[in-house]
């Protein structure tokens, strides 16, 4: 009896935004008399960091420091419509809404500053909370002064609104599945490698290392991206080897009803996780961003399964990969079984799991 090491990989892709699209987000912004910026968005922050990312987009776009931004997503009376935080859509779709609103605010700041400085707005730029003449940085005024002038001299409110809908709901042809327009806002890409150690006596699988490469267009905040992909890796680890609501699926018996009977990965025993972020900007996302939230737990399960095959030569195609399943596969292999049916050019795995093995009620697809 021994421990066996193996390596496996998987590559994945994932859409940004609701499938078939048709999921709007809206935002509006107002500027206080001292130039500080209030953002109103309907995007719930579920821990994904959308308050932070949207505040960054607004600060960058207007040209003011990040800590000038107050972000309010607290209620539906003051914040405009956002479809919600799901479908990996917050950064791309809601981010585009605040981006458009911030561009309007910037234009209005430039218009007021142009009147104050008596210069064409096209010759002005905004950065670090100040409006200055391009090429003549000495001639400038603070955004706080611009906001004060707007309020008390010109009697205007510096505001902006934005909405994003990308690009309208796709219609699906029921026969072919063909769509009339893109059903996603963007697609993100990733690859993941796992190194595992399999105990051939107990069936226990230890994931020692996960290496993952994500191209998400633009890492708006690399720390938050790492939070997403490391948290996602842990969730993918749980899907791969630990978690199931129905341990004897399809039976509904023996369900875990708490944290002591439904096991999620914990900080102890986590694998080493290595991350690589690639940035190939998308054409439609704010500053080239794409979605990252959901795909982060999609690559690990298969990479782990493939690493187990590499380690001990058995395929597990039912998840999670429990010690029982590994042991059963190892036992079958020792007894000379567990092989696919090979007949001419056909190699058929897992036939005992198929629907046609369970019923003859319907003539099934493949």
């Amino acid at each position, binding site marked *: 009896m021994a421990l066996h090491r193996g390596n496996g990989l998987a590559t994945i892709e994932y859409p940004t935004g609701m499938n078939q699209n048709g999921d709007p987000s809206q935002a509006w912004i107002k500027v206080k008399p001292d130039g500080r910026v209030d953002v109103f968005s309907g995007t719930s922050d579920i821990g994904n960091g959308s308050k932070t990312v949207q505040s960054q987009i607004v600060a960058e776009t207007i040209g003011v420091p990040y800590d000038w931004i107050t*972000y309010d997503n607290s209620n539906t009376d003051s914040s405009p419509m956002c479809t919600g935080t799901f479908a990996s859509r917050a950064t791309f779709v809601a981010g585009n809404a605040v981006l458009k609103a911030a561009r309007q605010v910037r234009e209005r700041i430039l218009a007021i500053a142009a009147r104050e400085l008596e210069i064409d707005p096209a010759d002005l730029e905004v950065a670090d909370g100040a409006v200055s003449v391009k090429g003549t940085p000495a001639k400038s005024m603070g955004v706080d002064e611009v906001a004060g002038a707007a309020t008390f001299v010109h009697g205007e409110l510096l505001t902006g609104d934005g909405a994003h809908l990308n690009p309208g709901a796709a219609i699906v042809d029921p026969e072919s*599945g063909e769509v009339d327009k893109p059903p996603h806002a963007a697609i993100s890409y990733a690859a993941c490698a796992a190194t595992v150690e399999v105990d051939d006596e107990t069936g226990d699988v230890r994931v020692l290392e996960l290496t993952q490469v*994500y191209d998400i267009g633009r*890492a708006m905040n690399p720390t938050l991206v790492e939070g997403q992909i490391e948290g996602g890796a842990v969730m993918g680890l749980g*899907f791969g080897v630990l978690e199931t609501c129905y341990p004897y699926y399809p039976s509904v018996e023996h369900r875990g009803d708490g*944290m002591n009977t439904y096991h999620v990965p914990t900080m102890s025993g986590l694998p080493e996780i290595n991350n690589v972020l690639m940035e190939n900007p998308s054409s439609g996302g704010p500053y080239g961003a794409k979605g990252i939230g959901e795909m982060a737990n999609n690559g690990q399960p298969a990479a782990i399964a493939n690493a187990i095959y590499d380690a001990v030569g058995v395929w597990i195609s039912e998840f999670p990969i429990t010690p029982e399943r590994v042991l059963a596969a190892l036992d079958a292999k020792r007894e000379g079984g567990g092989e696919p049916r090979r007949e001419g050019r056909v190699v058929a795995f897992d036939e005992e799991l198929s629907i046609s093995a369970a019923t003859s009620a319907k003539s099934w697809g493949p």
Partner: protein
Amino acid sequence: MKVVGARLPRYDGVGHVTGRTTYVDDVRLPGMLHAAALRSPHHNARITHVDTGAAEAMAGVHAVLTHADVPLLVHGHLSGAGIPGDEPLLAKDYVRYRGQPIALVAADTVDIARAACAAIEVDYEELPALFDVRLAFDDDAPVVNDTFGNWYNKYEGDLDVRQIRKGDTEAAFDAADLIVSGVYRTQSQEQVPLETQVCVAVPEPDGRLTIHTCTQAMYFSLGVVCSHLQMPMSEVKMVGGTVGGGFGGKVDTASDPLTALAALKSGRPVKWRWTREEEMLASGNRGPWHMEIIDAVSSDGWILGRKMLTVHDAGAYGRFSVYGLTKHSFHHTGAYSIPNLHFDGYVVFTNRIPTTAMRGYGITGLATAIEVHAERVARELGMDPYEFRLKNANRVNDTSPNRIAYEDPSTVEVLQSLASATGSELSDELRAMSRDERSGDMLPDHLVAQIGSGGH
């Protein structure tokens, strides 16, 4: 750029890690009542009799809700996308899963509310239950879903299958040197948010309702609440935006509509906080997927065609499952370009908790199946796993199963980067690959017809 791309601290991070963020459960109001639900003990049963009299008569009980109190009992969450509703907010004639809510009680304390739930008399006629999706089509299978039967049958009007047909799959299989099939079954997974489902609903003196919500989607949930309550959006103020973990499980709006009704009926603020057991046993989780893949492959490692059958175990009601299956169908080639496709997908109902969104919805299990299958095919061919994947990787202007040209696929680049990061050797030929539109050896005859244009 100065702010975008910077490692700035999380906007609300200090509050989260010091326990000072106000979550829904932190909301406490004078006169606030507490709610508890009576849930079905059966997987499938007809309700023959309900008597709430004893519960209503209990001291400290202020409201008992049943289906008769709900202005619109069935609201389809995706009715705007043409998918009819099927799930009653409170069970009426049948319960279709263990844990399905039948009544909600609002009382002075949680203990009183629970005791009142226990005092509600319900008579059931138990029915056989269906749990195995593979048996859902049998003539003698128990009927699960009152609206659709045992599988969804309203795709684009009246189809009972989500299908993809692309290219000439039969010709691809005729031409194949190798045909590899596999069956993949992925499991139900709980989202496990630290914050369980929770809501505080407050009837305001001006007649409006304030709803402190843990939803991931305030406006979506506003629509759900207003639909069930048959109220205009102006009458309800959702307060939220800060969520103690969602992972997809807080789009359903599980607690808001009933808590709102209890607040209206009692005239008092009402809090309904689910226990961890309810969160685990009665809230929607990731659904199981049964996937059968057959690939037609050439001896030099091209995937010529794919046939696939997917059966998604939706649980008792539809919720977002049809959406999830359609998304699944659109991505069933994964990161590869496979020109000839025959996909059939079914949303099948079983007597388990309705499944719902979870991180990677429709695709987590699919990606798992596709990538184990890819590894099997590569091993059968005797090909290096990187080489097989890089060869079949999608490229600019290749088309997806639904004929959309890929605009900026990075499959080649992420694989090359992964090989570098893990010290895996790639040949010069594989190192030189790129995402660029196909030409030369990378544009064999079988991939010509699938090339698109004007990519996205």
